[in-house]
């Protein structure tokens, strides 16, 4: 499974990559903000996107909206500190399939990925 990791923090990308590696996912592309992600996503064609919200240049929500204009189906998990109900609703309306709140345990991230991919394949 090809995964696109979008987060301005290299620390968080490394942490997520490590967790994904433990789950057997090694095909990972990284982007440091929404604009960087948009420049990579169409050529990379990921099977799953993990997207942070608060990023410089283009935030995660704006990236999701732009991405969903062309791709309505590839699953997106938002990995973010934004927890308010209004933000979650905003993200879901934009086209996010699932949500992981930072801080997260590896088990939680793994669970959310499994849930998301199961729903998509159903």
């Amino acid at each position, binding site marked *: 499974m090809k995964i696109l990791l979008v987060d*301005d*923090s*290299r*620390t*968080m990308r*490394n*942490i997520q990559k*490590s967790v994904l590696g433990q789950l057997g996912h090694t095909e990972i592309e990284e982007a440091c903000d929404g604009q960087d992600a948009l420049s990579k996503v169409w050529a990379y064609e990921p099977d799953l996107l993990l997207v942070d919200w*608060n*990023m*410089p240049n283009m935030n995660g929500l704006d990236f999701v909206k732009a991405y969903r204009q062309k791709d309505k189906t590839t699953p997106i998990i938002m990995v*973010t*500190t*934004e*927890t*308010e109900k*209004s933000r979650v609703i905003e993200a879901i309306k934009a086209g996010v399939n699932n949500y992981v*709140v*930072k*801080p*997260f*345990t590896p088990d939680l991230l793994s669970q959310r990925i499994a849930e998301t991919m199961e729903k998509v394949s159903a």
Partner: protein
Amino acid sequence: MNADFIRPFISSVQNVFSMMVQLQITIQDPVIKTESKTTYDVSGIIGLSGDVVGNVVLSFPTDAAERIVTLFTGMEMTSEHEDFADAIGELVNMVSGNAKADFKDRDVSISCPSVVIGHDHTIGRPKEIPCVAIPCQSDCGDFVIEISIQDRSANSSSASDVSAAAA
């Protein structure tokens, strides 16, 4: 400062450090901080805007920061490492993000974090917003959360709120 702003930071720092760094944090009594110089040499700074305005600083001695970041990233890391500042920024991002979720009925945005590393640096704060410093102890060393935030519509704050928050 509203005590309801301080308690979320106390639970947030404990939650974030426990989950991401596997470190237990002991909280000491908050105090009002009057000088603008940060307590220690490594500062992660987040701005808040919206219904609550101001900034939050996680301030670490360099050696404590290095130990914490090494645990957080799983890699030996000194303050010279190119990813050190990023790791500090991510810690203050998570502490602030988690805390603001507990601000009842307030729409608040947090900025992308900034990190300053250097002895005796000063961080500017709006003069009308008092700063509350929450000392934290851990097996990696002491650090402090410095909170300078208030309701956008607030006109005054009370030092007695500080002791109420510690209760």
